[in-house]
């Protein structure tokens, strides 16, 4: 059971292929208040340098996460990616059209309501000399594997509000 307010995180580590390495990598997590949720240890697949990629899902209090990453690095563990979010991927899209009159905050909250996505960043500019037309760049954090589904949601909201979407290339997010 986790305390209220704990957040889930994903860490990607790369371990040397030696006995005891995995245990050594997990100790700093436990010692700093992290609660292990799952460990995905890809013994079969080696990185170009011959290391073993390991993905660790954990929960901890918000202020603990940076301590855990620091402790891992102090222990000489290679931390490849430390997602401060529970989301494994991010996609960027552009929206063009009458963003204001079509209620931008409604657009954003409906994207957030789609459970697999969270708006991580938003930049907005007005198009000079064109009444009412503006462009927005949205960075959406999405759960691993749900990028296509999120894009589907973006498309359907855009169609309904008569906005143009410039999508990223899936597979090249």
């Amino acid at each position, binding site marked *: 059971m986790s305390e209220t307010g704990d957040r889930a995180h994903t860490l990607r580590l790369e371990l040397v292929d030696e006995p005891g390495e995995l245990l050594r990598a997990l100790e700093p997590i436990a010692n700093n208040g992290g609660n292990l949720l799952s460990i995905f240890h890809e013994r079969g697949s080696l990185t170009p340098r011959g290391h073993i990629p390991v993905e660790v899902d954990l929960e901890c209090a918000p202020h603990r996460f940076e301590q855990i990453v620091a402790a891992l690095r102090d222990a000489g563990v290679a931390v490849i990616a430390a997602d401060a979010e529970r989301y494994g991927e991010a996609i960027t899209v552009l929206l*063009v059209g009458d963003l204001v009159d079509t209620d931008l905050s409604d657009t954003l909250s409906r994207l957030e309501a789609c459970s697999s996505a969270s708006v991580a960043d938003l*930049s907005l500019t007005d198009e*000079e000399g064109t009444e009412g037309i503006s*462009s927005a*760049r949205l960075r959406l954090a999405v759960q691993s594997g749900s990028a296509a589904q999120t894009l589907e949601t973006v498309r359907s909201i855009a169609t309904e509000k008569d906005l143009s979407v*410039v*999508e990223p290339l899936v597979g090249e997010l």
Partner: protein
Amino acid sequence: MRLAILGAGDVGRSVAELAGEYGHSVVALADSTSAVVDESGVDVAAALERKNEAGTVGDAAPEDALNADYDVLVEATPTTLGDAEPGFGHVRAALEADRHVVLANKGPVAERYDDVRALERDSDGEVRFEATVAGAIPALSTIDGVGPERVTAARGVLNGTANFILTRMAAEGPSYEHVLAEAQDLGVAEADPTFDVEGTDAALKCAILANVIHGGGYALEDVDVEGITNVPPSALELAAEDGRTVRLIGEVTADGARVGPRLVPENDALAVSGTMNIVQLETKHAGRLNISGRGAGGPETATAVLADVRRLD
């Protein structure tokens, strides 16, 4: 090989001019209103000079070119949509006479691919169409070499005009209308740019790629198309702030074919500049292949046409 060339635009002219260098002879050359036929070899320079001065290539009627004694029909008349006529009729006539056909005209293989293949099955002639997708880029022969069943996706920048406009807008920030006018001055865009900027031309190429990869069944109406006319400079600016840019990308996957403006990283292989084209293939065993180069122009497209003629030898 003895070539009969239909169409005396940039591509037809260049094929006629370069044929000798490749060891072929031109036995007929036609434009939309006239033709010159000479089984001992057309004087190409004289015919093209006459075209420049009088607007006709010879005294014969255009249909006489189809009755000439040729080995390969080079179909380089303008692309038409729907029934793809008169290009499709030319393909039919050549195949029914057991002659080979090399297409620069996209219509027959974009709109009536299955019909063309059916005619080919009943003929001793063969149809090739490398020049219809991305000009000089050997996209189709690469797919053929890898094996269509081992190509899991194809994507690319398939229209130089749209790419020129997006590149200029991203670099300088002028409006779409401004850059379009500039492109028209430079001869990069046609007086009627609809075909290019609304994505139709790229979509025809996508339909052809989809036909080759999936073994037929595609026409223009099966491609989901969006052009670049709704992409304002502010959208390109927002993309640039984030290290990205926008390109009109044609994409063929197992799910189908689509053309639309897409965000790509600025230093991505697909972010070619100006009028350049690129075709990117995802392959089952060899990862990603990128082939970039000139996607339009007379000698460039003629190079693809003449490469097809060589493959028939």
